[in-house]
C-alpha cells in the first residue's frame, strides 16, 4: 500500500504458537498470502488458524470457488462456506466477493481457495492480480483477517510483485522431501532480526535457518526441483497456444473445440452473436484477432460486428469483395485492459458504489472524473506505444466496443464516444493524445445518456465492460486535411419509403463527403444525401434548386495543422485543395457559380448530389449487394457504416467500419402487433402509411391539434399554434406522440400545421391525419427537409386516412386532456395535451405485415 493507513495493534493468532512467535502474531486487517506448490501445505496452516479464530468467537467465512478439494471441511461447525461461481468472469466474480465482504461487515475472518484456480476458470494472470488489488484494501478497511493461497509458478513476476505490494503478510512454503520450511517474505510493520529468514518446522516450532551454508543448500535444492518444470501458463495463454497447435497439426476436432472456447472468452456471451461468430470466424481468424489485442478479454460488440460482417462478405461473395472490400487495419483493447485501468487507479470502490441502485446515476459523475484523471498500467502503456508505432502518423479512430454494443436489440447508437486522433506530433505527444482518447471513451460509459439507456432496457445490472476498437482512418491526405473520399450509413431495409414505388427491402443509404460523422447524426442546417437503393435517382425534392439547397455544404475533416476534427464549408475546402473527387461526387451549380463570379469568388460552385457516383459507377449495385448479403448472414436487417475509396476511374472500394442488427425504434426485440385488440383500446390503427421500420414505443404524452378548432383559426392564429406546440414539446422530456391535421411542417397553414422541425425534434412519433375538408392531406414527402430530419432523428411517422377501410382513428378514446383556462384563446384550445399517467399508449408497428397500432394495453374488456 502506498499510503500508510492505520492498523489496529490487536493481535490475532495463527493457531500455531511457533508461527505466532515467528511473525509476532497477525494483526487485525492482515491479508495473508501463502505461496504454496502443494495445497496440503496451505491446509495444514489453515486449520489451526480457523480453530483459533473459532475459539476467539470470530465469524469465519470460507470463500469456495476452486475446483480443488476444499481446504476446510464443509461440516466445520464454526465456518460458513459460501460457494461462488468463478466462471462468471472478472467483474461478476469480483463484484460478488465485494458484496459478500460488505455484507458480512467488520471483524469477519476469511479463508479463500487458491487464487491460482481462477486461471483455470477465466482469468489471465494479470486479472488475478487485479482481483487481489481490489479485494484486499476492502478487507483491510473492514478489520478482517483473510487468508489466500497462490501457486508461485503459475504467475508472472509482475503479478507476484503486485500481490506482494498489496498484501500485509506473504509467506512462502517450501517442501523438500519431508522437510517443510516457511519463509516469511513480508509482514507489514513487523520485524525481528530473524523474521524474514527461512524457518524449518520441527515439532510445531519454527527454527530460523541461521547457517548460511544450510540456507544456500536449501535454495539450490529448490532450484533443482524447479529446473525441469515447464512454466505454467494461465488459461488465456494456454488456450491460444493450444489453438495454434491445433491449426498447425490440422486436428479438426481440437480446432472445433478450441474455436468454441476462444469464442466464449474473446468474442461474446450473447447466443445470437456467438452463432454468427461460430459460422464466420474461424480459429485462425480468432488467432489473428488475438495478435492485435492489447490486454485480454472480450473485444466487444462493435469490433465483433465489424469482423463478422467482413467475413460474411468474403465468404458469401468472394470474387466481388476480395476486390472491392478494403482490408481492415484494426486493433483492440480487450475488456481486461479496462478493468486493469480501473483497478490501477483505485476506482473499483467507485464502480461498486455506482453499480448500486441508489448510486447508479448519482455516483457516475465522480467515477467519470476519476477515469478521466487516471493513468495506465505500465504494461498497457508499452502496448499502446507499440500500437502507435504500427499506425505511424496515420490518423486513427478510437471507438467504444463495449460488451453489449451492437447486439441484437441494443444498438447503443451514439451512447458512447468515438474519438478521432490526428496522430501528429512527437511520439510523446501522440501517446498522450492516444491515452486521453482512451480515457474519454472509457469515461463515456458513465455518461447519463448511456446509463439511462441501459436502465430503460434493464441492462443496468449487467456487466458492460468497455473494450476499444482502434481503426486506421480510411482516407487521403489533402494538404492540411485528411478525409475519406466519402462515407455513409447503409440500411438493408428502407424504413423511410416516401414513395409508394419504393421497396422497403431494397435498402437505403445516407452519404456524405468526408468523415462519416456527418452521415450518422442529424446536423442542423446541413444534409446528407439520402437515397433509396432501388430508386437512387429519385429524391424527395421538387426541382434542382431544392436538391442543391438540401445537399451537404459542410464537410467533416481531420485538420492536421490544428490537430483536431473540424468542420469546413465545402467551398473553403476547395480553396485549399485541388484534388478532391468533385467530378465523381458532385455537380456544378451553374446559377451559384455565376453568382460567385459576380461577387468575385472563384468558381465553379459544386453541389454534393452524388449523382455521378450513382449513375456512372457500380456504387449502388455494390452497396445493395453488400447490405443484402449481410442481412442474409445476420438473418436480420442490418445497419452498416462505411467509407469509400475511389480509384482513378471513380469506382468505389468499400471500407466496412461497423455492422449491427437494425434497431427497432423504441424498445427492443421483434415487434408483433397484438391480435384481438378491442376497439375500446385503440387510438388508431392502420395498414401501411407509416415510416420508421419496426416500432415499439410506450407513449407517456400526446399532443394533439384539434382539427375542428384548427379549421376555424385564421392564418396568423395557425402560426401561433405552431409556436405553442414547440413550447409544449420542449416543456417535458416524456415520450410524446404528436398528432394533427394535414401536414406537419408545411409552409401553408391551410395545409397543416406550420411548425419548424426544431419545434418538434423531441417527439417520438409524428402522426398526420387526413381531414374531411380534403385539403389537409397527410404526405410527408411534401416537406423534403422534414423527411430528411425524420430519417436522421429516427422519428416514427404515420399517416392516417380515417375514411379508408384500412384505417381506424378514435380521438375520443383519449382521456381528458390537461385543463385549459375558461378564458383560453382559440389557439390554446386548438392544442390539447394529454398526460397518460399509468395508462400509457403503446405504439407498435411491424414492417413485415405493414400493421401499425396505437393502443392502451391497460384497457381490457373487464373495464
Amino acid at each position, binding site marked *: 500500500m502506498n499510503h500508510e493507513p492505520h492498523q489496529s495493534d490487536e493481535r490475532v493468532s495463527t493457531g500455531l504458537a511457533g508461527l505466532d512467535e515467528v511473525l509476532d502474531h497477525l494483526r487485525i486487517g492482515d491479508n495473508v498470502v501463502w505461496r504454496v506448490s502443494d495445497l496440503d501445505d496451505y491446509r495444514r496452516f489453515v486449520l489451526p488458524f480457523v480453530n483459533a479464530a473459532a475459539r476467539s468467537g470470530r465469524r469465519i467465512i470460507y470463500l469456495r470457488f476452486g475446483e480443488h478439494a476444499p481446504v476446510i471441511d464443509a461440516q466445520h461447525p464454526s465456518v460458513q462456506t459460501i460457494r461462488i461461481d468463478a466462471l462468471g468472469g472478472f467483474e461478476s466474480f469480483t463484484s460478488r466477493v465485494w458484496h459478500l465482504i460488505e455484507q458480512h461487515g467488520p471483524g469477519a475472518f476469511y479463508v479463500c481457495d487458491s487464487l491460482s484456480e481462477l486461471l483455470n476458470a477465466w482469468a489471465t494472470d494479470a486479472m488475478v492480480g487485479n482481483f487481489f488489488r481490489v479485494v484486499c484494501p476492502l478487507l483491510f478497511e473492514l478489520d478482517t483477517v483473510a487468508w489466500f493461497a497462490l501457486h508461485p509458478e503459475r504467475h508472472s513476476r509482475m503479478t507476484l510483485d503486485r500481490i506482494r505490494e498489496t498484501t500485509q503478510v506473504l509467506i512462502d512454503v517450501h517442501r523438500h522431501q519431508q522437510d517443510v520450511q516457511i519463509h516469511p517474505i513480508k509482514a507489514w510493520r513487523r520485524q525481528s532480526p530473524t523474521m524474514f529468514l527461512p524457518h524449518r518446522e520441527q515439532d510445531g516450532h519454527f527454527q530460523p535457518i541461521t547457517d548460511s551454508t544450510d540456507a544456500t543448500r536449501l535454495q539450490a535444492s529448490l532450484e533443482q526441483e524447479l529446473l525441469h518444470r515447464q512454466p505454467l501458463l494461465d488459461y488465456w495463454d494456454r488456450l491460444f497456444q493450444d489453438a495454434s497447435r491445433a491449426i498447425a497439426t490440422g486436428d479438426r476436432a481440437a480446432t472445433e473445440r478450441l474455436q468454441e472456447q476462444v469464442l466464449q472468452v474473446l468474442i461474446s456471451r450473447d447466443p445470437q452473436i456467438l452463432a454468427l461468430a461460430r459460422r464466420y470466424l474461424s480459429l485462425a481468424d480468432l488467432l489473428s484477432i488475438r495478435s492485435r489485442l492489447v490486454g485480454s478479454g472480450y473485444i466487444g460488440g462493435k469490433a465483433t460486428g465489424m469482423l463478422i460482417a467482413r467475413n460474411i462478405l468474403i465468404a458469401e461473395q468472394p470474387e466481388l469483395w476480395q476486390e472491392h472490400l478494403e482490408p481492415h487495419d484494426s486493433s483492440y483493447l480487450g475488456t481486461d485492459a479496462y478493468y486493469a485501468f480501473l483497478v490501477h487507479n483505485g476506482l473499483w470502490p467507485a464502480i461498486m458504489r455506482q453499480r448500486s441502485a441508489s448510486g447508479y446515476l448519482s455516483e457516475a459523475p465522480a467515477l467519470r472524473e476519476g477515469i478521466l484523471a487516471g493513468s495506465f498500467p505500465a504494461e498497457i502503456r508499452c502496448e499502446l506505444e507499440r500500437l502507435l508505432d504500427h499506425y505511424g502518423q496515420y490518423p486513427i479512430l478510437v471507438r467504444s466496443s463495449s460488451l453489449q454494443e451492437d447486439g441484437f436489440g441494443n444498438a447503443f447508437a451514439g451512447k458512447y464516444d468515438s474519438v478521432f486522433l490526428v496522430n501528429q506530433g512527437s511520439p510523446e505527444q501522440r501517446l498522450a493524445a492516444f491515452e486521453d482518447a482512451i480515457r474519454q471513451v472509457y469515461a463515456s460509459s458513465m455518461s447519463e445518456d448511456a446509463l439511462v439507456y441501459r436502465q430503460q432496457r434493464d441492462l443496468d445490472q449487467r456487466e458492460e465492460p468497455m473494450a476499444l476498437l482502434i481503426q486506421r482512418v480510411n482516407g487521403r491526405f489533402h494538404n492540411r486535411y485528411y478525409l475519406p473520399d466519402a462515407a455513409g450509413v447503409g440500411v438493408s431495409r428502407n424504413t423511410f419509403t416516401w414513395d409508394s414505388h419504393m421497396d422497403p427491402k431494397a435498402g437505403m443509404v445516407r452519404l456524405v463527403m468526408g468523415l462519416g460523422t456527418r452521415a450518422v447524426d442529424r446536423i442542423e442546417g446541413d444534409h446528407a444525401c439520402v437515397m433509396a437503393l432501388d430508386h437512387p435517382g429519385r429524391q424527395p425534392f421538387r426541382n434542382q434548386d431544392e436538391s442543391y439547397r438540401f445537399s451537404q455544404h459542410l464537410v467533416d475533416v481531420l485538420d492536421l495543422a490544428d490537430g483536431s476534427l473540424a468542420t469546413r464549408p465545402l*467551398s473553403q475546402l476547395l480553396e485549399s485543395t485541388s484534388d478532391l473527387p468533385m467530378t465523381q461526387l458532385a455537380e456544378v451549380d451553374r446559377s451559384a457559380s455565376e453568382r*460567385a463570379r459576380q461577387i468575385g469568388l472563384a468558381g465553379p460552385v459544386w453541389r454534393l448530389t452524388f449523382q455521378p457516383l450513382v449513375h456512372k459507377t457500380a456504387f449502388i449495385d455494390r452497396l445493395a449487394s453488400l447490405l443484402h448479403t449481410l442481412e442474409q448472414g445476420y438473418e436480420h436487417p442490418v445497419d452498416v457504416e462505411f467509407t469509400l475509396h475511389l480509384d482513378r476511374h471513380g469506382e468505389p472500394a468499400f471500407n466496412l467500419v461497423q455492422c449491427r442488427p437494425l434497431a427497432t425504434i423504441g424498445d427492443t426485440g421483434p415487434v408483433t402487433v397484438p391480435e384481438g385488440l378491442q376497439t375500446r383500446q385503440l387510438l388508431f390503427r392502420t395498414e401501411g402509411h407509416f415510416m420508421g421500420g419496426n416500432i415499439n414505443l410506450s407513449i407517456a404524452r400526446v399532443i394533439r391539434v384539434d382539427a375542428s378548432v384548427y379549421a376555424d383559426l385564421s392564418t*396568423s392564429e395557425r*402560426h401561433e399554434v405552431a409556436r405553442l406546440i414547440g413550447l409544449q414539446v420542449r416543456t417535458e422530456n416524456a415520450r410524446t406522440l404528436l398528432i394533427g391535421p394535414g401536414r406537419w411542417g408545411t409552409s401553408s397553414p391551410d395545409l397543416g400545421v406550420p411548425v419548424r422541425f426544431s419545434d418538434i425534434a423531441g417527439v417520438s412519433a409524428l402522426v398526420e391525419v387526413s381531414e374531411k375538408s380534403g385539403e389537409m392531406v397527410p404526405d410527408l*414527402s411534401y416537406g423534403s427537409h422534414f423527411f430528411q430530419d425524420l430519417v436522421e432523428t429516427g422519428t416514427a411517422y404515420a399517416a392516417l386516412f380515417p375514411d379508408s377501410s384500412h384505417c381506424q382513428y378514435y380521438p375520443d378514446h383519449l382521456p381528458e386532456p390537461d385543463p385549459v383556462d375558461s378564458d383560453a384563446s382559440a389557439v390554446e384550445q386548438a392544442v390539447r395535451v394529454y398526460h397518460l399517467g399509468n395508462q400509457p399508449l403503446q405504439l407498435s408497428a411491424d414492417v413485415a405485415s405493414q400493421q401499425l397500432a396505437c393502443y392502451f394495453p391497460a384497457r381490457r374488456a373487464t373495464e
Partner: protein
Amino acid sequence: MPATLDEKLEPIFQDVLHRNPGEKEFHQAVHEVLETLGPVLVKYPEFAEQKIIQRICEPERQIIFRVPWQDDKGEIHINRAFRVEFNSALGPYKGGMRFHPSVYLGIIKFLGFEQIFKNALTGLPIGGGKGGSDFDPKGKSDSEIMRFCQSLMTELYRHLGEYTDVPAGDIGVGGREIGYLFGQYKRITNRYESGVFTGKGLDWGGSRARTEATGYGTVFFTQEMLKARGDSLDGKTVVVSGSGNVAIYAIEKAHELGAKVIACSDSQGIIVDEKGINLDTVKRIKEVERRRISAYTEFHKHAKYVEDGNIWSVKCDVALPCATQNELNGKDAKTLVENGCIAVAEGANMPTTPEGIVLFQEAKLAYGPGKAANAGGVATSALEMQQNASRDSWSFDYTQSRLEEIMIDIHKNCFETAAEFGAEGNYVLGANINGFLRVARSMNAMGVI
C-alpha cells in the same frame, strides 16, 4: 369569419358561399375584400347597381381538364389541372401555375381572386387568373416533368395567348417547367409568342432584374412612404428579416439609397452588424455556399449572432419583414414602435399579424402592406410582357428604372386612394380599394359582360 359585412355586401357574400360550396379559402379571400368595400359603395353607388361586385366574385371562365402522362417506367398517371380566368377587365388574365398535390379548384379560385387586385395595384394592363394541377413534381425525373407539362399544354394551349391568358411560375413551376410548357405551346401553335409566358429564361425573352424585383420594389415603396412624410431612407438604420432573395435585394437597394442595414436573419437566428451588413458576405453564405447566417461571424468577427434571436428587438428606423408569414406579431410591433421605428414595409406575404397592423396604424407609423410593397415581382412579370410585345431585350438598368416608376405609381395610387376615403396614410385601405376601383371602373365601362 371575423367582421360582419356591410348590409349591402352580406347578401353578396352569402351568394358566393352558396355558389361555391366547400371552397373555404375562396370564401375567406372574398370576405376579406368585401370587408373594405363599404365606403366604396357609398361613393360609387353605380357599382352596386351594375352588380360589379357580384360579377367580380364570379370567374369569367373556369377550366378543368384531364392530364394523362407516363412515368419513366411507362406507367400511366392521370392528374387534374385547372385554369381559372377570373377577370380580364384590365388586361389578359395573368397569374401563375401551381403544381402541388394540394391543388384543387378552391385553392386556385382563392389565389386567382387575390391576383386580380394584386395585379390591378401595379397599374399595369394585366388581369387576374391562376392555374395549376394536383401533380406532385417531387421526386420526378426531368423526363417525367417534361411529359407532364407537354400533356398539360396540349389541352391548355387553346385558352392561352399573349392577349388572352399569360401564365407564370408558382409553387412547383420554375424555369424548367416554364420552358417545357412554352416549348409545347410553340410547337402546337407554330407561333413564337414569347409573351404568352412570363418567368422565362434570359436567353429566350426573360426579364432581367426578376430576381431583384421584389426586394428592390419593397425598398422603392418604402422610400416613397418616407418621401410622403418629407423624409427619405438616406441615413436611416434598417433591419431586414430573412436572407433569401427578397431580403438580399432589399438590403442591396437600401444600401444604395443611403440607408444602413444592420441586421438580417434566417430561421435559426439573427445577425447584427452595427457597421452595416456586408451584402457580399450574405450572398456568399446564402447563394453560393448555402449555409446558415451564423457563418457571417466567421467573416466579420465584430458582428453578433443570436441563435433564435428576435430581429424586431433591434433598434431601427425602418423595418422590412422579408422572411415569412406571421413573423411580426403585436408584441414585436410594440417593441418597434417603442424603439422609434417610423416605417415598416412588407417584402414577404402577410408577415405582420392583425394585432401588429393595428398597433402600427394606431402609432401612425408608415405601414406598407405586402400587397402593395411587394408588388415588384408581379410588376416585373408585366414588364416582361411589355418587353416581349416590343420584341426587345431590355437592360437591367432600364428594367429597374421601369420597376421604380411602377412602385412610385403604386404608392401614389394607394396614398391618394386612402386620402380620398378619409384615411390618409392608411396604405392597407388604400391598396385594397385602389385595386378594386381600377377593376370596377373598367368593368363598368365595358358594359354587362
